[in-house]
């Protein structure tokens, strides 16, 4: 039995405009969710008009997750499904030119990233937790009592949840060295697959590159249990690292601004253009 979709957050929605609901910005990375980072970057790649909406740490999709979108009055959950919907609604398909074998490889490497490498993120974060409530994390959003409540109650609850998921999935049962080894091997597979190409399938970025971007940037910018994984990426996976940084330069010129101002309103086009666009749409 399907639960009814949650009530819309954005009632006065614009037609054919995506409302992307995600966590507020953090100090060291626009978002600690690899799926939200993937999705927002995908919207930018495909030039689909969107507005960020803060979930205020509490509002989740009908599947209990972030990110989710609202489009033309409908709620869509799960970033992979959302991308399929957007491809259909906006007639955009970064992988349209891939042949059947390449499309099969895309599905496989996507699993390697989102069902494999992904798990090293909550695993590490459930062991190195303090930063989430600090400057690198969300502390800029809170003051006084709320700050203490966030640090002492919300964050530990979130960590406990993460640990349970890691245990249920299986990765939580390994020790740190084992997880680091597995993850390094997976990084190496991505590095071998991209080879000397600019992107995984040649000169044009596909959804797979954006998926890798959303995940790899977490290892490059957010604290893990040790520096092993970041060092491995930078030293042993130069092509992969170059690719995700190329995407960062091209699609996130406002990365630093988004983080320092903790703003969901920055855009690729610079602050003046963003303000003008905002003024236009109201």
């Amino acid at each position, binding site marked *: 039995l*399907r639960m009814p979709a949650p009530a819309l957050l954005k009632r006065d929605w614009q037609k054919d405009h995506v409302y992307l609901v995600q966590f507020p910005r953090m100090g060291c990375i626009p978002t600690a969710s690899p799926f939200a980072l993937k999705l927002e970057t995908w919207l930018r790649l495909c030039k689909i008009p969107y507005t960020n909406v803060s979930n205020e740490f509490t509002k989740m999709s009908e*599947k*209990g*997750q972030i990110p989710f979108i609202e489009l033309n009055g409908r709620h869509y959950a*799960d970033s992979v*499904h959302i991308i399929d919907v957007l491809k259909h609604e906006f007639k955009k398909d970064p992988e349209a030119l891939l042949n*059947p*074998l390449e*499309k*099969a*490889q895309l*599905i*496989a*490497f996507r*699993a*390697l990233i989102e*069902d*494999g490498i992904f798990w090293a993120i909550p695993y590490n974060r459930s062991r190195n937790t303090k930063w989430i409530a600090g400057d690198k994390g969300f502390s800029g959003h809170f003051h006084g009592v709320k700050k203490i409540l966030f640090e002492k109650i919300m964050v530990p609850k979130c960590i406990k949840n993460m640990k*349970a*998921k*890691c*245990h*249920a*999935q*299986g990765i939580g*049962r*390994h020790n740190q060295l*084992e997880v680091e080894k*597995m993850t390094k*091997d*997976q990084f*190496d*597979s*991505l590095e*071998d*697959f991209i*080879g000397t190409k600019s992107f995984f399938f040649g000169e044009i970025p596909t959804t797979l590159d954006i998926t890798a971007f959303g995940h790899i940037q977490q290892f490059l910018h957010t604290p893990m249990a040790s520096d092993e994984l970041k060092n491995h990426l930078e030293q042993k996976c130069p092509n992969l690292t170059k690719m995700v940084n190329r995407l960062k330069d091209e699609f996130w010129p406002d990365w630093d601004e988004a983080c320092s101002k903790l703003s969901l309103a920055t855009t690729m086009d610079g602050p003046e253009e963003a303000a003008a666009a905002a003024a236009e749409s109201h």
Partner: protein
Amino acid sequence: RTLPNLSPWSLKLETWLRMADLPFTNINNEFKKFSTKGQVPFIELNGEQIADSNIIIEKLKEEFGKADMDPTDPMDQALASAFSALAEDHLCWTLFALRSQLGFDYLLSDDGFGRHHGSGLMKSIQHLIARPLISRHMTYRAQGQGMGKHTPDELHAMANKALASISVFLGDKPYFGGERPTTLDATMFGHLAPFVYTWTPEGKLTKSVKETYPNLGKYVERVKEKYWPDWDETCSTMDMNTHKNKE
């Protein structure tokens, strides 16, 4: 009754041992003995316990000099790693979630674990106790991993997409590794065999591997014929070491 082991990881590991031609003995965990990581399968080798099927395989490759169980070309290794993840970290969980949502009766039936519970009143009592425990545990795992959040229709769509990709990748090769089986073949067999031989909701996914992507169904049959000649014997007698009967 329909396949030697319901755990795809155990089926994978045992198939790997047979493909690598290593001497082994199966030991029944009696549903209660688990590794230090709380799982099966695990092995004991020269007095040491090793847990997690992938860690075990790496260790055995080293100990017994079985590097030829994997491709040497880095691109082939990368593809093997990716398709292994697709089968083991993605496809596997779609079926697991479907079973946790729809498949209890099957698990407790004689085709599943039912025959181990004796018969008559004892069996009914064991099922009464086991059912909610297994249900809760499977739901916990499926929800934690993430697949448990999806509806059966969504799970079917995801499973079919994964099967389609695996089918394209296999093409008309005899094994995923080419002419000879590799570790990826053990993984694929472990995770695809359940679709061929066990219950899937309304048989739809069994139809997928047998009719929509027939090279997968045929692949599973091929590996079974070659590496599990004692399949029917071990399934019907529940003897865990029928592979030794051939020696």
